[in-house]
């Protein structure tokens, strides 16, 4: 129980830090983002006093309010779900844009990361179990894929499978012309078809890391005494591999999974840019290129929150599968 409270306490601190970083950055930076944003909004239509007030709370209007009351107002707006109005997609509020784009990213990135994790850990188990086999020798090749930047691999795949042999579409999340979004077969098929190539790039460039980590842990675990005992007892090799070795060797990979989520999100922003995928990364880039600070801050907050949430989930799961972390206190 104490362990659980410690974990939750840590995530509360991390949450507070993320929210505060989000509050401080626009106020520390040179220039006046509020003026830029308000003048941009003014070009699109009339700015109500409420909008102005919420943007000032979000980005820091400057002199006439002390920092502390700005901070409380900012927190109040966050709690009530007011993240301001987007300039790029005027007059949509930031929250509705995040609502539209987040499912795309979670679907694509989440699935691709899970597939990559499962495949990588599986192959790594086999490679560690049979050291020196062809699979083991394949590992340097897959880590080479890992040092290839996400977006370059994406560009090359796009060039090969989109331009030279047009197997896959060049960009987008679904066929905009012939299907309507919703829970119908044609739309879902289109989403899968358009998502295959982006998912493939993410899997190709991240599977090597999982493989290497798992393989090394397998090799370390295999030299433990209890594995010798298991073999001496005459257990089937398959059982020794999965129940004795892999089950213990997978633990660092699982805690690594939580840490890697941040990197996955980062890589996916660039991947989404290459494929013009309608996810949250593309929205962030549009916000950046349009100096849409409200949208930018909102998206940064949501990304941070999702990474924090995923980390918390993995942490809780970890204390279920590894009882040692619970007793350690």
């Amino acid at each position, binding site marked *: 129980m104490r362990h659980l409270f410690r974990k939750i306490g840590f995530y509360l601190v991390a949450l507070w830090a993320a929210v505060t970083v989000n509050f401080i950055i626009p106020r520390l930076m040179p220039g006046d983002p509020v003026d830029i944003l308000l003048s941009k909004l003014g070009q699109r239509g009339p700015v109500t006093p409420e909008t102005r007030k919420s943007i000032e709370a979000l980005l820091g209007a400057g002199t006439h309010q002390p920092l502390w009351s700005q901070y409380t107002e900012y927190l109040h707006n966050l709690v009530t779900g007011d993240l301001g109005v987007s300039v790029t997609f005027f007059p949509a509020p930031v929250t509705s844009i995040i609502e539209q784009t987040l499912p795309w990213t979670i679907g694509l990135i989440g699935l691709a990361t899970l597939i990559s994790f499962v495949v990588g850990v599986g192959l790594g188990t086999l490679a560690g179990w049979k050291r020196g086999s062809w699979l083991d020798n394949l590992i340097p090749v897959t880590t080479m894929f890992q040092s290839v930047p996400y977006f370059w691999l994406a560009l090359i795949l796009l060039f090969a499978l989109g331009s030279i042999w047009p197997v896959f579409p060049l960009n987008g999340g679904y066929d905009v012309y012939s299907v309507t979004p919703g829970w119908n077969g044609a739309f879902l098929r289109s989403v899968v078809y358009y998502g295959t190539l982006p998912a493939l790039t993410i899997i190709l460039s991240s599977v090597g890391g999982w493989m290497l980590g798992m393989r090394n842990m397998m090799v370390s675990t*295999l030299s433990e005494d209890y594995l010798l005992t298991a073999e001496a007892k005459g257990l089937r090799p398959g059982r020794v591999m999965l129940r004795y070795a892999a089950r213990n060797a997978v633990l660092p990979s699982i805690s690594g999974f939580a840490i890697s989520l941040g990197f996955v999100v*980062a*890589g996916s922003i660039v991947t989404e840019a290459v494929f013009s995928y309608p996810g949250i990364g593309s929205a962030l880039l549009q916000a950046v290129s349009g100096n849409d600070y409200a949208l930018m801050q909102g998206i940064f907050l949501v990304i941070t929150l999702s990474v924090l949430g995923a980390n918390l989930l993995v942490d809780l799961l970890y204390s279920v599968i590894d009882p040692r972390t619970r007793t350690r206190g």
Partner: protein
Amino acid sequence: MTLTTQAADPADTGATLAEPSRRRRSLPPMSTKLAIGLTLGGLILLFGLLGPYVTQDPSLVHDYGLTGPSGSHWLGTTQTGQDVLAQLAHATRGSLTVGAIVGVLTLLLSAFFGVVGAYAGGWVDEVFSLFTNVMLVIPGLPLVIVISSYVPDKSLWLVALVLSITGWAGSARVLRGYTLSLRNRDYVIASRVAGEKRWRILTVEILPNLIPLLASQVVFAVIFAILGEAGLSYLGLGASGSFTWGTMLYYAQNGLALRLGAWWWFVPPGLMLALFGAALSLINFSIDEIINPKLRNQTRAARRGWRMSRQQLAKAKEAGL
């Protein structure tokens, strides 16, 4: 709390280190992996150092536009007739500069927060490790994107600074775990009993044992920085007026190099990124084998332990061991 479990791992790796000479262990054994990595990395480093002096002006515009590789332009030209090879040389220098700056800064930051915190113990350790863990869960690249979008004119130094601020936490955590186990080793306790000063224990007794780990963390930091900078520049958020592998890819993408099939424009910078990354990972493999000798010695040691010849071992394997 964490001490007991952390200590177990390096302690028994120490036991498996049964090589006769202590001195030889401080340098990685020259394997094929390491040789390939060093050669590849060295060549790219040389290209970045010397290339800009012998190639043409990378910004010089010619009126013949996009052309393929030829005698006068070995890697062809861009849409505006700029020499791709010259750009590649300058970009190599730019990217390596970012990597070097971030490598040094990450080393300092992670050593400070990881090693000093873990060695000092008490509330200093609590605060440092909390700070490290918070930095670790806040995603790096989105933060970099947000920060860099507020600053319109960025120097290469600023980009490197931002990348190292967001990138040091992982290394610090690794270093902390290892330092925690080191500070409770017998020889450290012995030197404490002997009355050595705290800073001397830290720099003379503990730090030398961390060198392989620090080296591998720096190599990771350099890979991370170069890839991160490339991603940032590819999104058009890199340092203004600089040449890096990322900016080359950005201009190639904007110049429709993909649609026009101008492979000589977008393949070289990406390939350089991949090769340099691969070279550094190969070097890191070799360092890993020092840190974790189980990865290196196990089969040989096992064979010796079982007193089996190579043939006997092969037979045993065939039998399904």
